């Protein structure tokens, strides 16, 4: 995945200013910076929810900057949101089933006859239950997603991303507001995902978590890339500390 000369303004505010970043392969990359640095704007462009004013984004060489979110998702890009988004009235299991791609029962004519999609749906449910075990949410499959604790909801939204079987995951503040015990679970889970050959890009303000989890850190400031490198090197730079305090 790569972005070249990406710019985006909202009125007079320049949220991204000619950002050029490439993510060469699998691993875990942290995107850090103070509020308003442009991290979420970058995520919104990478996932198709915003169109850049100038510049381009490519996945496997394909220009994605002007594709719709579902088209980008079909290329293997999954994302979470800063505020937890789940289908709160659906059960935990249904949320995980919903997120799975290419479902036969989502075609209108197939949907009319349960026989047409039953076996496919059973496979989806089986995969969803495996994910529930991985998330340590087994036993809660029939609970409405809205009834979960905030931390569990964050975990489930991560699970929904996994259910999409992505190559690239964009996680927007996966640890914010989460109880430390559950935060450790999320860190473990993200570390496992990173090792499994998926590119994980995450936005996070908890620099300890960033240092323990990320293979690489990108620091953004006022819509531009300020520094990039290993966490141990980058997070000590005076200009990074200054930007963060700023």
């Amino acid at each position, binding site marked *: 995945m790569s972005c070249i000369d990406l710019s985006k303004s909202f009125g007079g505010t320049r949220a991204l200013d000619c950002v050029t970043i490439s993510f060469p392969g699998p691993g875990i990359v942290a995107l850090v910076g103070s509020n308003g640095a442009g991290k979420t704007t970058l995520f919104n462009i990478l996932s198709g929810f915003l169109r850049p004013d100038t510049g381009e984004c490519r996945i496997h060489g394909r220009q994605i900057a002007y594709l719709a979110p579902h088209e980008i998702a079909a290329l293997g890009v999954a994302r979470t949101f800063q505020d937890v988004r789940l*289908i709160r009235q659906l059960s935990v299991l249904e949320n995980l089933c919903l997120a799975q791609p290419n479902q036969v029962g989502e075609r*209108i004519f197939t*949907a009319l006859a349960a026989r047409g999609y039953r076996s496919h749906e059973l496979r989806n449910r089986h995969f969803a239950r495996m994910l529930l075990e991985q998330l340590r949410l087994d036993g809660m499959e029939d609970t409405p997603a809205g009834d979960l604790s905030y931390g569990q909801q964050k975990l489930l939204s991560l699970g929904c991303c996994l259910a999409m079987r992505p190559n690239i995951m964009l996680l927007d503040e996966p640890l914010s507001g989460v109880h430390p015990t559950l935060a450790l679970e999320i860190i473990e889970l993200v570390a496992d995902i990173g090792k499994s050959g998926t590119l994980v890009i995450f936005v996070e303000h908890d620099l300890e978590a960033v240092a323990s989890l990320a293979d690489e850190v990108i620091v953004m400031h006022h819509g531009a890339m300020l520094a990039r490198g290993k966490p141990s090197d980058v997070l000590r730079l005076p200009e990074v500390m200054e930007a963060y305090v700023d």
Partner: protein
Amino acid sequence: MPYLLHLLILVAIYATLAVSLDLLVGHTGMVSLAHGAFFGIGAYAAALLAVRFGLPIWTGALIGMVGAGTCAFLVGFATARLRDDYFVIATFSLQLVFTNLCENLLSITRGPLGISGIPSLAMFEEIVAPQTQMLVIGLGFLGVVWLIVYRLAKSPFGRVLHAIREDDVLTRALGKDDRYFKSAAFAVSAAAAAGAGAIYASYTSYIDPSAFTITEAILVLSMVIIGGAGRTWGPVIGAAVLVLLPELLRLIGLPDAVASNVRQLLYGVALVGIVMLRPGGVVGWTNVHERVR
């Protein structure tokens, strides 16, 4: 007896309209005010093709359903990104355009003079009374539409519709093309409404634009809300309540001029009462767990 059959036929036709609209309102979260127009497209297609071109009324009904479905799919695709009240305004406009066309395309629709002599769908008059046949056809079509909506709502397709209703941004992020799902739901809903329109035209044997106005669209929407949007039996019960309620006024013996005003008043009171006291509709809270929660 004929009067009771007449009421049951009307309940079947309006229940079909309400069930089909519920696919949009209750399951997808799209409040449409164009249902009167799709009802009318079916009625006019069946009537015009039968009266002017001598086609069997079944053929006209099918063509009307395909036409209404196609029209709704295209409108749905164009308006899929309009949210909440903007979508309501778009469908309201569509309804007004349809009513105006019906009233002003005199060479085709005969405007307010309407179309008479529409043949009946009843075919075996020597065996069963036409009204009984119409009731069977009305209930049969209601059954088919109810089953289609039920099956869709319980399927993975319906799961996506429910997701769109709650959070279309997340649904898109999960890789679902909300435009396709909204348009498809709109098309199915409109085709079913057109089918009900064809049955209505064939039953009354006369149609004019006054039967397919915004008032009808609001009436059907009220049926969905009063019965319980997104509930399995809600729209059917809502239709039965709103079709039969005015008939109670007849039993009381109110003069027609007063009764029509009292009817509007009752609709208003029922709507406000339901929205304030029982947001799930008449059949809301049928599930004990839901009530406890």
